[in-house]
């Protein structure tokens, strides 16, 4: 064994409890320790990912009880891939936000970094846990961190955004609890593999009711259409790096939870069509809402929601190819959207309203940041030779192979809308005159490094997509083979007899 998945959760928790203590003695530690923890997690998770890609899935039991009885952590190619991605982004966001704003007091800074770390840990927990109630607990950890981070600035609107998020989050946790109650009352178990194993025993009515409540509960985290009203507000009002973390980490965890339900837990074929429909509606509504935005981060938020819609469409195709495409899309979105948020947050750094019109002409004054923003915009609308193109191509190929021509057409039409609003911003950055009252903020060196890392990944994947495709193929294989997942988890203990 190369590492232990439980450390991915335990170490950040330990650090979270430790930081207030050490912070009393050495103030800088509150900023440094989360970074060290995230770096440790990154190394550990990456090495485990390499291991599971070539060998078998790592399954870790907790408290010594085997699969259906105790909680277990599953580090498979799929979960490992997503966990590594999230931790990587967490690290990038940490690197970026290290001393992001200089005049922040000690207490808020401490809290910011604790919450950031717990956000990552919670999201990783959502992904690698093998137990639905445990997943619920991790969703709550992530959500509370997210509420707190959204309300981080003491401005007028951040509390409002956070409150909306919390309102929806409470509904989400209620729905999840109801769903868990139904599942438990019928199957007497909470382990995902065990549930999947016995799902055929459950009466159809209960099964679908439970799925519907799950959809609502997790849909709020995954930002599907009627449930995503909180998202633009939270993205807009949270500090810039946190918008990146939401787009790259929190949503991805929600999407994972959703697909785990649809692909593994429940054996309802119609849920695939549901994913396609809901994904398309999300995509269309969000992208069309984005076009008239006058705030930069809000526009990015809508775009992010739209991309999640596309991810759901890709998952809804239901073939291994579709899953591959969806995961590729998630990967690319998790790299590109944070880059946009991070560079965007420097573009509107000193502005109060964060309006798009305030980025006019900044291309000359902050060349690298602007260039990275433009790179992100080019990549996210799917222009070759950047990474976004390959994922869009795989989605379309997968859809075409299933004969979903109408869906391809819709997705492409929406892409044109996307092009319009992204290019309007890029044009503003480069070809407009800067207004005099905009104060330019040079990025700090660590922020620059963080953005450059993301930018170079876009280029590398763009020129050679095959360096990630092996992980994606393994992961999609992992998601498609429900039986293998069940056997992997349950084989270490004996399955409960029926």
């Amino acid at each position: 064994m190369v590492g232990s998945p439980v450390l991915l959760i335990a170490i950040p928790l330990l650090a979270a409890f430790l930081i207030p203590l050490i912070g009393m003695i050495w103030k800088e530690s509150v900023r440094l320790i989360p970074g060290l923890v995230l770096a440790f997690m990154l190394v550990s998770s990456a090495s485990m990912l390499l291991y599971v890609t070539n060998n078998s899935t790592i399954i870790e039991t907790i408290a010594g009880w085997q699969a259906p009885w105790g909680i277990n952590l599953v580090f498979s190619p799929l979960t490992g891939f997503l966990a590594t991605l999230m931790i990587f982004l967490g690290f990038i966001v940490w690197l970026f936000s290290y001393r992001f704003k200089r005049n922040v007091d000690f207490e808020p800074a401490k809290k910011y970094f604790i919450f950031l770390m717990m956000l990552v840990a919670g999201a990783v927990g959502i992904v690698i846990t093998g137990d639905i109630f445990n997943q619920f607990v991790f969703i709550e950890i992530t959500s509370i961190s997210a509420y707190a981070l959204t309300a981080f600035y003491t401005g007028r609107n951040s509390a409002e955004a956070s409150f909306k998020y919390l309102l929806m989050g409470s509904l989400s946790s209620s729905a999840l609890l109801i769903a868990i109650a139904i599942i438990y009352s019928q199957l007497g178990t909470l382990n995902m593999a065990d549930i999947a194993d016995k799902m055929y025993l459950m009466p159809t009515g209960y099964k679908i009711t439970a799925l519907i409540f799950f959809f609502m509960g997790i849909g709020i985290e995954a930002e599907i259409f009627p449930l995503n009203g909180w998202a633009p507000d939270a993205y807009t009002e949270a500090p810039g790096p946190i918008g990146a973390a939401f787009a790259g980490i929190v949503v991805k965890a929600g999407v994972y939870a959703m697909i785990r339900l649809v692909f593994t837990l429940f054996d309802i074929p119609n849920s695939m069509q549901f994913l396609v429909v809901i994904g398309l509606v999300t995509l269309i509504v969000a992208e069309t809402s984005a076009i008239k935005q006058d705030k930069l981060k809000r526009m990015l938020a809508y775009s992010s929601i739209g991309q999640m819609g596309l991810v759901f469409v890709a998952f809804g195709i239901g073939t291994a190819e579709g899953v591959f495409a969806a995961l590729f899309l998630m990967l690319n979105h998790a790299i590109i959207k944070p880059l946009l948020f991070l560079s965007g947050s420097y573009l509107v750094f000193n502005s109060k309203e964060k309006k798009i019109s305030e980025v006019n002409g900044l291309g000359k004054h902050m060349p690298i940041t602007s260039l990275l923003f433009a790179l992100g915009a080019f990549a996210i609308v799917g222009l070759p030779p950047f990474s976004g193109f390959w994922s869009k191509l795989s989605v379309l190929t997968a859809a075409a192979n299933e004969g979903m021509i109408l869906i391809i057409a819709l997705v492409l039409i929406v892409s044109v809308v996307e092009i319009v609003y992204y290019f309007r911003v890029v044009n503003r950055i480069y070809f407009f005159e800067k207004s005099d009252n905009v104060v330019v903020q040079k990025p700090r060196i660590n922020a620059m490094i963080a953005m450059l890392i993301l930018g170079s990944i876009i280029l590398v994947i763009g020129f050679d997509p095959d360096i990630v495709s092996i992980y994606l193929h393994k992961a999609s294989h992992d998601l498609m083979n429900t039986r293998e997942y069940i056997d992997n988890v349950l084989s270490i203990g004996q399955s409960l007899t029926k």
Partner: protein
Amino acid sequence: MEMIYLILVLFLGGAVLTWLLGKISPIIRDILFISSVIIPTVLFFMNVEVGHDVSFQVLGYKLSWGISYLAYLFSYIVLGLGSLASVYAVAAMKGKKNLGFFYSNFILSIMSMMGILLSRDLISFFIFWEIMTWSSYLMVVFRGKDVQKVGIKYFVFSAIGAYAMLMAIVIVNSLTNSLLISDLVSSFGSFSLSMKWLIPLLLLIGFAVKSAMMPLHVWAPGAYSNSPMAFTSMFSGALSKMGVYGMIIVMVSLVSYIPNGFWLKETIAWLGGITAVGGTLWAVAQDDAKKLLAYSSVAQLGYIIVGIGIGTPLAMLSALFMAVMHAIFKGNLFLVVGAIERQTGTSNLTEVSGLIRKMPWTFISALFSIIALAGIPPLGGFVGKWMLYESLIGSNHYLLVIVVFFSSTAAFLYSYKFLFGFFLGQEEKEWSHIKEAPAMMVVPMMILAVATFVLGTFPGLVLNPIDNGLQELGFASTQGRYWEMSALFNEWGNQVMLQPLVYAIIAVFLFFAAFLTIKGFKHTRYVTTKDISSSGEVPKEHENLTFSQNFFQPFLRAVEPFMKRRIDTYYSGIGNGLEAIFDFTRRIYTGNGQTYALYAVIFIVVLLMFKNALFGL
């Protein structure tokens, strides 16, 4: 390393280095720029041979690069015009800001066009197509003028076209499980009827946008006139030919195999005809030389599309010949306008006049290009047009002949206006300090001017490669060369030259030129526009009395009813309407947290009802 890789890498590396190292000093930048265009060009013509393909895999898609005869023909246009325009650009753009960015984009667009020509599969074709689109987009917005309108319009239309192509590509992939163009062509016959229509149509939309076919041409005038002229010559000359290139492949290799596909061909031909007429009329109405040339490009591309649409070997021959010629003379004309704009600061025909004595070399190259454009022998434009008429009549498209003939006659109007407006007429005082453009600009223009003459005189130089390309596409040659079928070569010329005709015309031409020059020197009295005193009204200082003012007013009044309905306004109507709708949809997000919660409850109720409907309780 494979030569093809090396060429593309050299282009790409050149683009990056020009940008990065260009910040050090302008000289390094200029040298890097020119050498990274010229060196791969030389390497290409020395080393790349037709029929040698390389292939590799990306993400499970098999990609293949190599060059065909047809593509080789187009690579003459791209690399030839590219090299000349790059030399021109160094002189023309001197002293402008952000030149590193401009140059690297220039190289990128040349690279992408070469990539398109080198692609033997649809994915890499699309990739290079998109790179071409965004690099040319960056050129359109380079001067920062009207970027939100013109630039976005260009990109949106390009994206619509590109996405139509992409859709066709993924459908092809799902049907044939391969992306090689050769596989598409070979298995096209086995597709279902709907797919046989859908795939060529989608591909044609993509190509039609780039080749500015009506009704997808609306981006072209703005985009052509907004980018720096050194690039516009590439844009109009070479970049739009990529659409033509794709269109030829689709029309010949795919559309021919559609049952009842001739309807599509007819439609395309007629759309081409309408494009030609519309472009010409609009060009006549323009006062800005850039806009005039832009509309003229649209019109000329219309002729080419007519030829492609007719689809007989002779028509194809004429279309390809016109494509080459158009690249040369239109590329040159844009360079001329660039030179004039650089020297005088304006490109408006009503403001500048009488430059013939100030910029004689520019005038001569403009004259050659205009003559070629108007289709007067012995310059190149004539051969293409002749063959077009011949093929139209040969395939019984008499109505289309009339349309094309009308438009090419009307083309005289704007040709004349262009030449007259800039070079002839009175010399204004304010232009008295104007000097000839620097040699680095004049030489490329003169080379192109000579090229129009050479190709007009020796059309075989181009017709032979064209013939190779056509044979490769499947027009199996039975009796030697196709172009020998043309009366032009049967009756009056041998196989390479149009000797007697040509010599006669050259003699007449030279004689008249000499005569006019000598006569002109003797009797000319130089006056300015303000130097008139008819009916006792002395014109005011700022009154614009240039001849080019309201040049063809009677004619325009006659055709006004046709020109009133601009397609552009429909498109902007659609755009504005959509934005209004989108503005409405975002009101779903009311901002009230409670409403969002209500949505969640509605969501669950709807799903529960669905569940009841689908599965029972």
